[in-house]
C-alpha cells in the first residue's frame, strides 16, 4: 500500500471517530438537558421562574427547596420524610428479594426439567404480563382490603411481586438455558450433588443475569406510582413517588420542592447502579458472548 493511501485512510479514520464522538456528545447533551433542568429548578428557591432562559442555570441558587422537602426544620416532618424514603427502599428491596427468591427455583425447574404443565405454566406466566397493572388496581384494592394489608409495606410488596415474579422467571429461565448442562454434569462427576452443583456452579454462572433481574425488580417497585397512590392513603405509609406527586397537586405546584425530591429519590438508585454496573454490563451482554 502506498504512503499516500495510508495517510488517506488514517484521515478517514480520524474523521470517522470525530463524527462518532460528535454524535455521542449530542446524544449525551440531549439526555442530560432535562436532568440539568431538574437540578437547576431544585436549586432555585422560587422553582420555575419566567426569567429562566433556555440554559438550565438556577436563579439565586440555594438549598432552600431541599430544606423545605425535609420539613423546614420541623423534626416531625423530617422524620416523616425519612420514613417515606425507608418505605420506598424497603418495599423495593423486598420486592426484588421476593422476585429473585421465587424466580430462581421456578426458572431453574422450567429451564432444566421436563414436567407436566411446564409449557402451560410458561404460557400462563406470559399471559399475566399482558395486562396493564392499572387494570387490576380495583380488584387489588379489594383484595388487600380483605387481607387487611392496605396502607402496609407487605401489601405493596405482594402486589409488586405479582408482576415482578413472572418477569423474573422469564429472565432467569433464559439465563439458565444459556448455561450449558455440561458444567453441571462436570460438577456432579467431580463430586457434587445436584444441589451442590446448582449452588456452586449454576448460580455463580448466572450471577450477572440475577443482578440485572433484581435491579429491574427493584427499580420497577421503587418507581411505581399508580398502584401505590391507589393502595396507600396514610401519609406515613407513602412511598416517595406518592409523596412527590403531592407537591404538584391541585393546590398549586411547588416545582422547586418537587425537583429537589426527584433528586433525593434518584440518589439511592444512582448509587445502586454505580455499584452494580460491572454486573449490569456483563449481564446485558451475557449470551451474546461465547464463554
Amino acid at each position, binding site marked *: 500500500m502506498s504512503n499516500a493511501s495510508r495517510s488517506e485512510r488514517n484521515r478517514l479514520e480520524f474523521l470517522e471517530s470525530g463524527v462518532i464522538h460528535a454524535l455521542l456528545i449530542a446524544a449525551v447533551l440531549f439526555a442530560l438537558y432535562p436532568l440539568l433542568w431538574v437540578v437547576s429548578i431544585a436549586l432555585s428557591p422560587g422553582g420555575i421562574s419566567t426569567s429562566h432562559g433556555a440554559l438550565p442555570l438556577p436563579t439565586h441558587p440555594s438549598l432552600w427547596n431541599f430544606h423545605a422537602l425535609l420539613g423546614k426544620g420541623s423534626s416531625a416532618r423530617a422524620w416523616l420524610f425519612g420514613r417515606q424514603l425507608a418505605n420506598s427502599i424497603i418495599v423495593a428491596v423486598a420486592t426484588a428479594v421476593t422476585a429473585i427468591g421465587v424466580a430462581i427455583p421456578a426458572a431453574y425447574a422450567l429451564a432444566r426439567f421436563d414436567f407436566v404443565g411446564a409449557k402451560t405454566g410458561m404460557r400462563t406466566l406470559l399471559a399475566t404480563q399482558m395486562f396493564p397493572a392499572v387494570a387490576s388496581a380495583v380488584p387489588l384494592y379489594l383484595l388487600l382490603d380483605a387481607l387487611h394489608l392496605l396502607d402496609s409495606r407487605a401489601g405493596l410488596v405482594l402486589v409488586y411481586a405479582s408482576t415482578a415474579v413472572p418477569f423474573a422467571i422469564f429472565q432467569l429461565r433464559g439465563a439458565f438455558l444459556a448455561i*450449558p448442562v*455440561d458444567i453441571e*454434569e*462436570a460438577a456432579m*462427576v467431580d463430586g457434587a450433588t445436584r444441589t451442590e452443583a446448582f449452588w456452586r456452579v449454576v448460580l455463580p454462572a448466572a450471577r450477572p443475569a440475577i443482578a440485572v433481574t433484581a435491579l429491574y425488580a427493584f427499580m420497577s417497585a421503587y418507581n411505581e406510582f399508580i398502584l401505590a397512590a391507589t393502595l396507600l392513603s396514610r401519609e406515613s405509609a407513602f412511598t416517595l413517588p406518592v409523596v412527590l406527586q403531592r407537591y404538584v397537586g391541585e393546590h398549586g405546584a411547588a416545582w422547586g420542592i418537587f425537583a429537589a425530591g426527584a433528586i433525593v429519590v434518584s440518589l439511592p438508585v444512582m448509587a445502586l447502579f454505580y455499584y452494580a454496573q460491572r454486573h449490569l454490563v456483563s449481564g446485558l451482554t451475557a449470551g451474546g*458472548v461465547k*464463554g
Partner: protein
Amino acid sequence: MTLPHEQLSTSVSVASASSEVSAPATAPKRKLRCSVRGAKKSFGQNPILRGVDLDIEEGAFAVLVGPSGCGKSTLLRLVAGLEELDEGTIHLGERDVTHAPPRDRDVAMVFQSYALYPHLSVRENLAFGLKLRKTSDKDIDERVREASKMLSLGELLDRMPKQLSGGQKQRVAMGRAIVRRPQIFLFDEPLSNLDAALRAEVRVEIRRNHDQLRATTLYVTHDQVEAMTLADTLWVMNGGVVEQKGTPLDVYERPRSEFVAGFLGSPQMNFFDAKLEKEGDRWLAIGEGARIAIGEERFGAALTEGRTVRAGVRPHDLVRAEEGQPIAGNLHVEIIEALGFEAIAHGWLTASGPRVIARLDADEARKAKSGDSIPLAVTPGSAHLFDPKTGLALDAK
C-alpha cells in the same frame, strides 16, 4: 536399539489388548476395572443401546468408535452415572455402581465442550473436585502443581476460562480430570472442537499422559484416526450394539462385518457385488467390472462356486498393475487427489458400477489425468468377503 520405554509400552499394549491370550508370567492378567453387562437404554420410544457388554482392564485405553447415534456417548454417560440404565449392570472395580450417582463412582470426565466452570480461575477449576471431596489444602496444592506441570498449565493458573484458547481449555479440562486420580478417565469426543493441527498434537499428548499415568481410560470418538492411534482395545459400535472389538490393527485387518470394514479406514473401502468363481486353482470374485483374487486359506469352506458375495478392497490395496500382474479392473479416472507422497484416484470400473477409489504413486499421479484408464491390481490376500444378506465377514475363523 530399542529404548526401555518402547519395550514397556509394546508389552503393555499386547497384554492389555488380548485378554484371551494367556499373559506372560511377568505381567499377570490384569483385573477388570470397568465392566458393563447387558446394557439397555432407550430415550422414549427410541432404543439407543440394545444390550451392550463392555470390559476394560486396569490401565487399558479403550476407545468406543462409531457413527453418530450409535450409542457410544450414551454408553460413556451411563458409566459416568449421568444417565441411568434401563437394564443391565455396571461394575467399576469390584463395586456395583449401576444405581450410584456420579459423585460416588470415582470417575473423571473430559467433556467435548470442556465444561470449565466459567466463574472460577484455572486453579479453582482444577481444585473444584478435590475441595468437594474435602482434600487437604496441602494435597490440593501439590496435585494442582503436579497436573499443571504435566500439562504445562503453570502460567495459566490464575486466568479465567474465557481468557483461554480452545487448546488451553482442553488441557485444563484434562488437568481437572488428572488431579482427581480417579478409577477411570472418561473422554467424550475431547478433540472435536480443536483444529486439525492441534488435534494431532493433543492426541499424542493424551496417549503420552496415559502411558505415564497408566490410568484406565474410556474414550469416545467418531474419528477413526483417533480411535486407531489411541486405543489398546477398539470397540466399534453401530445401532446400539458392539459390532466388533479388538486391537485396532486386528479390527482394521479383519473387520467382522461390512459395516466395520466400511467405517474404519480412510478413504473408505471399495465394495463390489460379485460372484465367486474358480479359475484353475485360483478363486476370484467377479462382478461390477472387477476380477478380484481371493486368498483361499483365509476363507476356507466359505468359498463355493457361484456364491454371491460383497467383495471389499481397501483403496491402498488397489494399485496400478505391474507388467504380468493379473488385472483386477480398469479404472476410468474422474478425479485425482494428489497428497504429495501419494495420490488418490476416484473413478469407476464400469459406468453402471460403484465409485471406486485407488491409490497411485506420486509419480503416476503426475502423469495421470481425468479421463485416463488405469489397469489396477489387488494386493494379494487383501480382499475381504462379506455375506450380502447378513453383512458378516466370510473369514474361516
